[in-house]
């Protein structure tokens, strides 16, 4: 929605067993980025973005912690 370079597919693993097997899905939710990086489970958005940046070979973004941004805002 924010960036048109990004496409997302949700795949129901039980119906598409062949895909689930191809990507060795052992647990859900499992996320695969550009067919190369993968992780299982839910992660915070900040972490997710950094995994994408890593996959693209870009430097990670340092997000301010909630506490820091509160301080900055005050």
């Amino acid at each position, binding site marked *: *929605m924010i960036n048109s370079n990004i496409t997302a597919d*949700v795949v129901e693993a039980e119906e598409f067993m062949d895909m689930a097997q191809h990507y060795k899905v052992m647990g859900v939710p499992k996320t695969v980025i550009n067919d190369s990086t993968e992780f299982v489970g839910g992660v915070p958005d900040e972490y997710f973005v950094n995994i994408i*940046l890593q996959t693209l070979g870009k430097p990670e973004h340092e997000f301010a912690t909630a506490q820091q941004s509160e301080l900055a805002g005050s």
Partner: protein
Amino acid sequence: MPLISDADREVLVQRFNDRLTGTVTIKLFIESAARSLLTIPGQPSGQASGQYGKLTKELMEEVTDLSPLLHLEVADIRGDGAEDAARLGVQRVPAMVLDSESGGRVKYYGIPAGLEFSTILEAIEALSRKEPSLSEAVAKVVEEAIQEPVHLQVFVTPT
């Protein structure tokens, strides 16, 4: 018998009334029953995928009936929808393309049943409001730092 109970229907109508602001067109690709008797090795049996397609169609018809802002277009991947499916990169059915206007960047393969029903509702609502659920800081990085194609595949189960 409808898949969504009367009580749930009432809740959903209210929820859509409160949360939807723009129209959302959902393009659903299925395989027509006659053809789906074919079984392709390594693929779910044609009959099974036809059955899932039928159920997904029923479910999404019921959902899109609950708000005038929601539209459902159903097409046969081997028939009237073949060209569209190729353009949007859909190779498997049932498949739903949620933002077909902007090139189909969000796709859902399979039936959005069980827990995944809320996933599809949230996706519909986010698209309708054009509001991502990300924080400002994260949205900014996503917007600015990514210039190359990123393809995300998320595997889920209905339970």
